């Protein structure tokens, strides 16, 4: 009849399962895709990542050597990290921080 009764009472007696996020932060899982990072020391600015990025969030130019990521356009798929010939792009497991305009 009232099937959740036991579980509800158990919940009251036990410690809540809540992770108090801003106070206690859980370490991210290894290999988790948080946000994109690029190591400029190895990058050749070949532009493969920009061409292959599904969301067109990357722009790379050779002449003024620049590599820009629009963080709010990036869909964190990690495709750029996969195809980067020099493996200079990697995924940081921490999530990207919100920002204002």
């Amino acid at each position, binding site marked *: 009849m*009232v*099937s*959740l*009764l036991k579980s*509800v*009472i158990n*919940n*009251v007696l*036990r410690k*809540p*399962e*809540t992770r*108090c996020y801003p106070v206690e932060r859980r370490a991210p899982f290894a290999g988790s895709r948080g946000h994109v990072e690029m190591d400029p020391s190895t990058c050749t600015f070949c532009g493969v990542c920009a061409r292959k990025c599904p969301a067109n969030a990357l722009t790379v130019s050779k002449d003024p050597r620049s590599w820009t990521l629009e963080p709010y356009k990036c869909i964190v798929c990690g495709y750029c990290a996969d195809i980067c010939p020099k493996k200079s792009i990697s995924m940081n497991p921490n999530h990207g921080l919100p920002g204002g305009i």
Partner: protein
Amino acid sequence: MIMIDPVITALLAIFAVPFIGAFLVGLDRKLTARMQSRIGPPLLQPIYDVIKLLHKEPIVVNRVQIIYAGLHLIFMVLCVVLLALGQDMLMALFILAFSTISLILGGMSVRSPYSRIGSQREIMQMLSYEPILILMLVGIYLINDSFMARDILASGKPLLLSLPLIFPAFLMVMAIKLQKSPFDFSTSHHGHQEIIKGITLEYSGPFLAILEITHWYEIFLLFFIITMFWATSIPVGLLIAAVCFFCEILLDNIMARLTWPWMLRFMWTVALGLAVTNVLWLYI
């Protein structure tokens, strides 16, 4: 309480009661959260909410709404004051009903579908609990020979012993009044359902705060009535009230919300049956 000067009692009722109500709402939210294995908001959250609401932009759909919100509050306060002064309980209940009617009319004054549906449902809620409340008073009258709250408080024996069946019926009414599952139909106070926030939907900012404060008074009122069932010893009465309060929250957490036709059926058979049975044996 009655011994003190009535003016002081009335002022106390007007100014202290909302804080007790707010505390109870806070407790309710905290306990509910714990039952769902959450930490929940701080105990004073209702007060934060109301202060925030009071400072928000006063958006309305029409000006009539405001008057009804005001009347809702006044009638509720009046009801609490009347009870605190130990006045006629039948009148107090009528006043309570008018408070609810004001809310209903406020909801209907806006041509918003959800607000309207909420009002219609609130009417159905009234229809299902009003007879029980009056029957409860009839029961009390038959025992104490008086509708006066002060006579009940002063009477020698606990009401609960004479009204054992009306008490659970009243608890069902309380569940409706507290907007708890399985009855939360007109406002969806807890959780989101088909009519969003129903009757309170078109109120925002300070006017929503008024409704919230009224709810605090209402909660205190219900507590007061429960305590009255064991008026001979206030601590015992409070204990009973606390247990009932906990049970209401528990019920809210272990039941789905049902539909108002079900409520009407249930209240008019089970709860009304209990109340009538109890009243009948008092007659004999």
